[in-house]
């Protein structure tokens, strides 16, 4: 039961289709704040959306957000910390967002269709990557994340 986005070049329509498909696969979803993105509720809460373009190329973007402990690190220290992880590890993209939340983001490129196994493996792998990161930077992140 592949997700079929043939001819869909609109972000919102593609993301809606993805959400319905996730629900059919048995994932529990809930609304995300602000836009059509949605949350897959599992080991982590991944906020998921699709970037579609006119050539039937699609990119699934999965983001996990953590609150930060006020005052633990300055913005400059957070920026350096994120740059250090981004430079050292080839997994995910890390940043401090405008709301001073710590964001981790992964992207999955696909063309017109997405098969369930690839999607499940992708979610499993980014869960594993997240666990690795939290372990690797445990001393900093336990103290810095709410």
């Amino acid at each position, binding site marked *: 039961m592949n997700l079929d986005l043939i001819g869909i070049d609109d972000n919102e329509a593609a993301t809606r289709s993805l959400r319905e498909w996730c629900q059919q696969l048995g994932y529990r979803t809930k609304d995300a704040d602000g836009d059509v993105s949605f949350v897959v509720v599992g080991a982590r809460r991944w906020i998921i959306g699709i970037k579609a373009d006119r050539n039937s190329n699609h990119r699934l973007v999965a983001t996990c957000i953590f609150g930060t402990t006020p005052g633990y690190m300055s913005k400059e220290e957070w920026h350096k910390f994120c*740059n250090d992880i981004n430079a050292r590890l*080839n997994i995910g993209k890390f940043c401090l967002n405008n709301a001073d939340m710590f964001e981790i983001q992964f992207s999955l*490129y696909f063309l017109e269709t997405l098969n369930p196994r*690839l999607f499940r493996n992708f979610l499993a792998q980014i869960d594993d990557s997240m666990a690795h990161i939290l372990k690797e930077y445990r001393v900093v992140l336990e103290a810095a994340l709410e």
Partner: protein
Amino acid sequence: MSLKLSLDVGMDSEAAGQALAKWAADIGFHVKALSSPERFGLRSRYNYTVTMAGTAEMRRIILIAAFNGSPNHRDPDGKARFANQINMDYNVCKIAFDQDGSLYLEFVLYFEAELTPSLWSTFVTKADEGIAWLNQKHKAEFDDLIA
């Protein structure tokens, strides 16, 4: 003959990366061997270093374009702030500066046992377009940061 890249389950990342390099060359990409066998060079609109990672169930191709940092720009706080801004604002790629001030732009492609030429070509094209777009959008900053 199928044009897909098919990787055996028993291949480790280094062997899978070498298979990718050969396959990419066979379908017309400009590929260059590097001194380190686990990666290879790819010439497209930009020069990339390509590495394979992940597991047999879920391979990960990491495409990195690197640019030397400008000797005139010595503000590590400014670089980290700029990198964070780009990483926060856009879904194009991941950018980071290393300790020498060089700039890295990283793109990642996940796939399973098989990779089609169309997905690979699209991925490389999106990387080319992404870098060009970022460079245009933040030309002043890139001109200042890159040698």
